[in-house]
């Protein structure tokens, strides 16, 4: 209904309000636009990059996108451009691996100004169907309305999978196996707490992941490529608040261990190496071949200590044998961030096994509240890490994940206003060259991001619609039944 309304209104506006640009002053600088799409690399199947003039004094905006074959696409609007969806996709498909030139004009009180054209690169690498994320206010401990949503990246369609209006509590930790929603995990907190699991498109089952032998509930899930295992951490988490620091909040663990859940046997697999009292272990992820487990580890603070700036997580690795569900006997430190008084969070290996992307901040593991947090790329063949300069900004870059073809990275950034997290996408080629990122496109980006007082939390790629039935899920959540996780005894080496 809303879509039809928008389309009709757009058509009406297009036909009635387009102005001819005359006597435009030629500017030698490129335009300042919102979102900043200058020089970005985009996939062929992304939704139109509508944008506005950053300066709100502009009365109208006009843009012509031209390719090297003489095709062009025109849009004009009062506040924002609104490219025709079909024409946009046609133009992009005709320019796969090529570049587009965008000429922008803006009308001010003194007339039209035409700016130096800028370029948009169209990568031949396509992006996945969409992303799935949690929308939540960037708050402290109490939560208001929130939910898990999916967004089609080729259009502007957003759909709620489940919202906390359907049950009492909060929802988080959505996870898919390499973006495939046939394998899905979702965590519910509160009086109806549960972990919902869907394996091989089976019906959802609600699990109680807390056992007498583990610290607490299983969080931060990551699927094994085989779909048989899910790596979790279990964390005793606390929060403290800054009294005079823009980072506002510190979320920290006072204990944490790692575990792997075997779906086939309904057992948690433990290792004494991953449950050491003197070490905080968190954010486990499987390597692309499924034979290693990467995670973050830091020396634990003495009990009661709040020297949070001395918690430094390094990137570690342990072998994992998927045929037996057993762990190796040695821990390798892959990135010794602690030695540099830095801290690693959110390790994410690319699915082609070439790279591992992680967030580096000054301390701790909850980097979303750290303005200094940046993305780093570890070349797994050389072991060398480097900052993803092309993608990073002066503000927070934090959670991230790879597209199923390992050529796109979606990441959270607070560069827009310093508080509300937005999803950005950057292209990473086979050599690790990082393209300029672009913000998730919207129909009218300024209006959309201004009106939305919610952060995009944990953006995950999905290769198709999740087919998640929120009503059925809420019935399962509101029901008392929970299947308990079992625990397998240690297998000593």
């Amino acid at each position, binding site marked *: 209904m809303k879509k039809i309304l928008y389309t009709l209104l757009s058509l009406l506006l297009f036909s009635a309000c387009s102005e001819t640009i005359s006597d435009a002053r030629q500017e030698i600088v490129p335009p300042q636009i919102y979102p900043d799409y200058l020089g970005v690399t985009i996939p062929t199947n992304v939704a139109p990059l509508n944008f506005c003039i950053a300066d709100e004094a502009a009365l109208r905006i006009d843009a012509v996108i031209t390719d090297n074959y003489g095709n062009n696409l025109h849009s004009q609007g009062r506040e924002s451009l609104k490219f025709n969806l079909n024409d946009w996709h046609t133009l992009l498909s005709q320019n796969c691996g090529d570049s587009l030139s965008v000429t922008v004009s803006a009308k001010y009180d003194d007339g039209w100004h035409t700016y130096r054209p800028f370029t948009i690169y169209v990568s031949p690498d396509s992006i996945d169907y969409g992303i799935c994320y949690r929308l939540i206010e960037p*708050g402290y401990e109490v939560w208001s309305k929130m939910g898990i949503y999916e967004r089609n990246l080729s259009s502007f369609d957003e759909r709620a999978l489940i919202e906390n209006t359907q049950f009492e509590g909060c929802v988080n930790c959505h996870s898919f196996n390499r973006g495939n929603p046939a394998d899905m995990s979702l965590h519910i907190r509160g009086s109806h707490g549960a972990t919902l699991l869907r394996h091989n498109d089976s019906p959802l089952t609600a699990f109680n992941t807390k056992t007498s032998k583990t610290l607490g509930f299983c969080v931060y899930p990551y699927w094994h490529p085989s779909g048989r295992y899910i790596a979790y951490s279990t964390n005793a988490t606390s929060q403290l608040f800054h009294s005079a620091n823009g980072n506002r909040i510190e979320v920290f663990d006072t204990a944490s261990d790692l575990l792997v859940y075997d779906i086939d046997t309904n057992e948690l697999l433990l290792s004494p190496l991953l449950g050491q009292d003197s070490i905080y272990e968190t954010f486990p992820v499987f390597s692309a071949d499924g034979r290693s487990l990467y995670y973050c580890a830091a020396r634990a603070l003495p009990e009661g200590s709040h020297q949070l700036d001395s918690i430094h997580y390094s990137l570690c690795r342990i072998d994992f044998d998927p045929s037996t569900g057993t762990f190796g006997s040695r821990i390798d430190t892959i990135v010794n961030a602690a030695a540099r008084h830095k801290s690693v969070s959110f390790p994410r290996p690319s699915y082609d096994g070439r790279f591992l992307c992680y967030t580096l901040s000054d301390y701790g593991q909850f980097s979303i509240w750290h303005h200094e947090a940046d993305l780093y790329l570890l070349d797994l063949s050389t072991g060398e890490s480097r900052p993803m300069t092309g993608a990073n900004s002066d503000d927070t870059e934090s959670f991230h994940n790879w597209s199923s073809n390992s050529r796109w990275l979606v990441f959270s950034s607070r560069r827009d206003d310093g508080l509300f997290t937005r999803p950005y996408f950057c292209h990473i080629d086979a050599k690790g060259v990082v393209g300029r990122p672009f913000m998730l496109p919207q129909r009218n980006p300024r209006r959309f991001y201004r009106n939305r007082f919610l952060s995009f939390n944990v953006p995950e790629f999905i290769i198709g619609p999740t087919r998640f039935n929120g009503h059925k899920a809420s019935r399962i959540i509101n029901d008392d039944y929970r299947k308990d996780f079992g625990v397998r005894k240690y297998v000593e080496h």
Partner: protein
Amino acid sequence: MKGSLFRCSLFTIKALYTLLFGVAVFLFFGLAYPHHLHYQEQYQLFLFDSTYVWEIIRLPGGVADLLGRFCTQFFLFAWVGAAIVAVLLVVVQLLMLRLVSFGRLFGLSFVPSFLLWLFLLDENALLGGVWAVLLTLLAIWSLVHHPPKGRGFVILVTIPILYWMVGPAWNGSHYHRYPTVVPVLLYAAWLSAIILPLAVHACKKWANDTRFSTLFSHLSFLLVAFCMGLLLWKNANFKAERVMQYDFMARHQQWNRILSTIKAEKPNNQIGVTVQNLALAMRGMLADHLFEYHQNGIAGLLPDVERDATSPLPTSEVFYQLGMVYVAQRTVFEAQEAILDFQKSGRCYKRLAQTNLIIGHYEVARKYLTALQKTLFYREWAKETMSLLGNEEAIAKHPEYGRLRQWAYAEDFYFSDHVTPEMLEDLFFSNTDNRLAFEYLKAYYMLTGDRKRYTNLLLHSVSR
């Protein structure tokens, strides 16, 4: 001629009763319950914005909800709010009269309105509920007066439209801030609006008998008014009204009014004591007059931050005035998040814009101010404040923001839900101009009986 005069005078009397009822509602909410209206207003933020409107009206019951929210924004001014409530309740009563001829049972036409009045005594009852009953009555009235031909079709069309407009009247959501609370009184009002006309219609012969008609009309009204008045009196929460008054006065920084209020009646509730102490401190009288008033230990001075939407707001006023800008920001943010029906708050948005402005997070402040610019009553303030963004000189000169920026903590430390004396000491010793911190610190030592620190503080103060 005589009959006509008789009908005319009866009509006039009925109109007078309706007027009397309206005036009673108006005076009740304007005089006895004004802060309940203020309380309602502060837990919503009506935006003149198409996305906001669409998000509400796309849901069943959205029209009633939207109309309720639209009217509630006027509750910022209690008398305007009282007038709106009075008009709505009078319209409900008049619609009842239009549905069926009540005759001798004229007083029963007031029952739904009285029940709605009772419903609105609850500070968490939302005005959308009144609109739901009103719209339902309007729909029934239009159906009753539709010519018989085609009425079936009109009913078929009306039912889904009515469901869209007032839908969840059937299950109560949208009409009470607590989603789990069943608004029994709203149900009762809605049911009475349907059942009473049917019942009167069933005994229309007796009801419309002209013998003693005037007497019965008087009696029925007086009986209903007496019973309902009694119920209103018993159910009105004047204690809550006092608490809300303190919160209101703190919100609007009416320090002198607070002082005269506490002089007349010493508050003994948590919020009242917190606000009383803040007003005393703002006038430099806290330590000297501390024990002339009820105290609640440290909790009356600087209460721990709770996880609800009500008690943290006056507490946050104290944090804000002291210069604990980040603490105030967190407290207000959490209070807003705790609003049970997930609405936003004009009061909280305003304070979040202010705290972000003071700490220099201008883009975040701009976001809140932009939203406030879409409101009726915060627009002008937001526009003025917008001009301060990034203007360091203007902020430094601003009597409130400049002072609070100067008083704010220079050294960072972690805090949680409990204010410690060290937090006050930090405030005062890093900026001895902060007389509010001085007052609070003295009071803190007095309440905890810490003579040593109290003496040291005084010595420090004297030696300056």
